[in-house]
């Protein structure tokens, strides 16, 4: 203790006090104040930037969700439109088919009727012609046959024979 007190130098104490005061003053003025201010500013800046980034991220997310929603809606709408179009198409095709069927049936009927009547006319015509031709042939055959007396008799005989058979 004695040595400690003996070693204590009041002069050094005073010098140290003055120097430390000066050092604190100078450092606070030229170093600590600007450093701490800048550090705070930077930290606040970083904080702000982080918050802004978070905000942007959220907005982006919202936007993305909106986009997704819109896309979904658009897709659904397209889907509906396509469906409707398909239905319309199908209906139209069915309608046309039906109509065509009806038309075709009508045409076929008309054609059949026309064919029928034509056929009848043709048959009638053929019948007439056949009748005329038969008469002419018969006339010619008769004229040929009846030129000879024997032959006439023979014919009558065969005819009579036929009649018997019938």
């Amino acid at each position, binding site marked *: 203790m004695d040595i*400690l007190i*003996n*070693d*204590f*130098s*009041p*002069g*050094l*104490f*005073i*010098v*140290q*006090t003055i*120097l*430390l005061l*000066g*050092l*604190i003053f*100078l*450092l*606070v003025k*030229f*170093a*600590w*104040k*600007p*450093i*701490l201010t*800048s*550090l705070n500013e*930077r930290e606040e*800046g970083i904080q702000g930037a982080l918050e802004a980034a978070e905000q942007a991220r959220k907005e982006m997310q919202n936007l993305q969700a909106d986009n997704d929603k819109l896309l979904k809606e658009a897709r659904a709408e397209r889907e509906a439109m396509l469906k409707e179009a398909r239905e319309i198409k199908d209906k139209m095709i069915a309608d046309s088919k039906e109509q065509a069927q009806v038309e075709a049936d009508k045409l076929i009927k008309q054609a059949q009727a026309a064919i029928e009547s034509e056929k009848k006319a043709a048959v009638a015509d053929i019948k007439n012609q056949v009748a005329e031709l038969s008469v002419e042939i018969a006339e010619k055959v008769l004229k040929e046959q009846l030129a000879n007396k024997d032959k006439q008799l023979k014919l009558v005989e065969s005819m009579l024979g036929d009649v018997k058979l019938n």
Partner: protein
Amino acid sequence: MKEVSRSVGTLLLLFALCFSLQGFASSESDDKADGAVSTKEEVEAYIQHHIKDSHDFHLFSYTNGAGERKHVGFPLPVIVWSSNGLASFMSSAFHHDDSGEVIVEKNGSRFVKLHSKIYELDGGANEVKFDEAHHPTNAHKVLDFSMTKSVVGILLVGLLMLWGFSSLAKQYKTKKVPTGFGRVLEPLVIYVRDEIAKPNIGEKKYRKFTGYLLTVFFFIWILNLLGLTPLGFNVTGQLAVTAALAIFTLIIYTVSGNKDYWMHMLWMPGVPVLIRPVLAIIELAGAFLIKPFSLLVRLFANISAGHIVVMSLIAIMFTLKNSLGVAGATGLSLVLSFFITLIEVLVAFLQAYIFTMLSALFIGMAVAEHDHEHEHDAHGHEVADAEDVRENFI
């Protein structure tokens, strides 16, 4: 691979440090004619001399071919307030004398240097007379404002800090993130602010005191580290220096103490009235004596002890030379002093941290806002808040 080369580098550095310390230890600044240190008593005297402040900056000594002891270093100005006013001269006027033999006359006063102290001879005395306890009888101490080795150390560290930190401050003007050495300093500043100032003083009030805490932290730390270099500074091992630091802290927390602080100190609420004066005495003693005294003694004792231990271990080289042989004593000394030096590097930081942390804590206790409406839990017990825990911890 990188790791290995790095640790090898550290080892080499520390060995270099040890060797240079050894170089310092084996040199001699005593007034003895031969000057070399070899015996146990000489080692003790040398260490005693080293941990004191000195009036000249001694680097090393050697014995030249003619057997003369040469001292290499430079003198420092001596400025003393004597009975005849201010006197100043260079310390070389004492010719390395430390036993009061060389008398320097200046401004009508006669000065001698005795165990690193300047004495003024009483009027008419021509030489120093000693009593049995080796105290001078016809000379008295003078107020010594000399630029001693410690003052040189303080100035050096002050200039280093001013240069380093103001250049860091300047960097912020042009860029957000410092480059170069500033990149090393910035985390240290943030460390002191976030780990010492903020938690101990509180988020709201820390700003006002951070300047002081930062100054003290770096001042002590750099001086502690300088003390480990072969330059042989022992500034933070000077009572005067640690006392000044502790008194700064005392003044700061006394001046900035709020009403609650004084109330708790002088008239403690919540205890019987009869006990209050007793508590006030204890609290006053705590605030004005114990706290600053613990601060100043802790730093002084730790750093002085560190210096003594390192130097003693290095001295093993001479003191155990006979029993262990030159190689054995040198090896033992190197190994031990190497590890103690490593520990001292840690202690250098630790003491700076503890001093700053306790200063912050004392300031924090003086400015703390006490809320007496403590929260109560379901059973009616007080819920201890951080403030209470901190007080209990102290």
